[in-house]
């Protein structure tokens, strides 16, 4: 009896939590499908007429394709570079003995502790003198410095958890260090690579301050900047903003769903000892 009550309470709490987290998404979708007029007069949780005007406006009037392309290029490139450099750094930190390892880990983490706003101006001057303002590299490089610590820390932790025996077995089997890295360690690190990749991608996809500061016009603006600049002098086009938010969230959500299978698969395959 008591057990049953407990389960009901637990279930109720879960439902409440789900409503709490999912409601904004629901409302964004509903609002993006409601006409502006209806939205301002009597907004309804159960809209009567679904219209796609806002989405159409997004791609015809506003050229929302360009910011999406920019975001994909910047976030994608940053993620790939972060994973490559981060994996190599993490391998060294996890597997090779050298002096000052703890200090290096500390420095890497310290980078993220600067408030972003405090380094916008110096970074701007730096990028301007390198002629990188309003270019992809001008965004990718700052993103890498901010995303790298997460990559390195998470990957170092997960590589440390992979039994060293496996690489040693590979060595005895005849593999060189590079072979044991690519054929044994890397496949086993795929789940954590996917996880850190997703986190890095999301960070870059949503980043606003640098993207706003280091771009000049719509040519190189990313999705968050573009959405922020939707608002005109006299009105805020909520319908279009929310439609854009939905469009911007979709690729990330899709990516997570794709990789999720991979993550779960990787976790179960990793069981070595019985």
């Amino acid at each position: 009896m008591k057990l049953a009550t407990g389960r009901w309470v637990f279930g109720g709490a879960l439902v409440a939590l789900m409503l709490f987290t999912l409601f904004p998404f629901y409302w964004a979708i509903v609002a993006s499908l409601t006409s502006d007029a209806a939205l301002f007069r009597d907004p309804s949780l159960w809209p009567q007429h679904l219209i796609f005007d806002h989405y159409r406006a997004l791609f015809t009037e506003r050229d929302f394709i360009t910011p999406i392309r920019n975001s994909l290029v910047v976030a994608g490139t940053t993620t790939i570079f972060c994973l490559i450099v981060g994996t190599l750094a993490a391998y060294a930190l996890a597997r090779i003995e050298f002096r000052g390892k703890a200090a290096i880990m500390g420095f890497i983490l310290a980078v993220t502790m600067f408030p972003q706003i405090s380094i916008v101006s110096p970074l701007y001057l730096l990028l301007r003198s390198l002629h990188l303002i309003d270019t992809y590299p001008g965004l990718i490089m700052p993103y890498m410095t901010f995303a790298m610590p997460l990559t390195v820390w998470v990957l170092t932790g997960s590589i440390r958890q992979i039994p060293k025996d496996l690489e040693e077995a590979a060595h005895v089997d005849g593999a060189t260090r590079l072979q044991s890295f690519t054929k044994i360690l890397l496949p086993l690190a795929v789940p954590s690579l996917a996880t850190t990749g997703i986190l890095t991608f999301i960070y870059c996809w949503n980043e606003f301050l640098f993207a706003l500061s280091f771009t000049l016009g719509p040519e190189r603006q990313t999705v968050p900047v573009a959405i922020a600049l939707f608002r005109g002098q006299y009105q805020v086009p909520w319908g279009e903003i929310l439609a854009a938010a939905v469009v911007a969230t979709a690729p990330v959500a899709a990516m997570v769903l794709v990789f999720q299978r991979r993550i779960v698969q990787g976790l179960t395959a990793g069981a070595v000892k019985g």
Partner: protein
Amino acid sequence: MARIALEHVDKTYPNGYVAARDLSLEASDGELLVLVGPSGSGKSTVLRLMAGLERVSDGVIRIGERDVTDLPPQQRDIAMVFQNYALYPHMTVRQNLGFGLSIRKQAPAVIAGRVNAIAASLGLEALLDRKPAQLSGGQRQRVALGRAIVREPLAFLFDEPLSNLDAQLRVETRVELARLHRKLGATMVYVTHDQSEALTLGDRIAVLKEGVLQQIATPMELYRRPANKFVAGFIGSPAMNFIEGVIQRPDGAAGRIGMCTFKGIDLTLDVPCDGGTRRRVFLGVRPQHIEVSGDGENRPKAEVAVVEPMGNEQIVYVTLSGGDRLVAVAPPQELIKPGDIVSIRIRPEGVHIFDAETGSRIDASPYAIER
């Protein structure tokens, strides 16, 4: 196949821990050498030095006649079976078995042939497409074994390969390993902390303690003539009894004959003893060499504390009048209960004498036991 030899090998870790000290030993061609010792004795380190997974601080390692001291593991052409098997979790059994061959750029047809042959000989055919996570402990053990054999290496190294198996499987696999060794005629070095594994498998056994070789000998030699008190106490089950005592030459006695006085037991032995000085020694007797009986006059008396019936024998724990505790093995039909006063007889062939300070063996032949 080839011999493996360590010549004056030292291994000191950066933190100052000494895992091997002036260690020289050899597993000759086709021999199964067991390295045995308690945890921290450096036996696994020695194996890792042989494999090339650790570098020696000093000394030379040879495989065959080749000096491999500075070669990385992949160039030593040896195979190793790890304690936790270290199967590649993301590969199927087939890929695990073929990994070493494919790394060495063998033709796929050759690899497939060898893998299938090994799988057949180990009864793994049905499992070839499974991942390690889908195998039982015993099956993983066999895959690990197969992965070592398939490459036909110069020598095999085993790092406590049976310790993760349950008792019954351990005995079966032990027999399997012995059979495999005979079939392959391969040089094998086998690390274990389990003395029964060491005694049953080893052509010879090297006993290590704190990185120092204590004795290297055949199982029989090790059991019959342990080189020091440590080896004597480590090999044999139940463990050897030790009683403190002194050697003294009785007045007027000539030559080597010495009188041994232990707490509660006096022995006359043919041991080297110099005149008047008393030499502190330990008497070592295996439980199998102590007879316990209800009758017997003029013999040391002891009180029975615990009796453990084992079916084919019973293990008797007694306390001597001097306070020393002894373990004895008695035949199952002997009627002994806790609290009984029994008499003790030490069989002459079972007497070992060790120097109390150095622990090293003092060769003694019993003259007359008892008084």
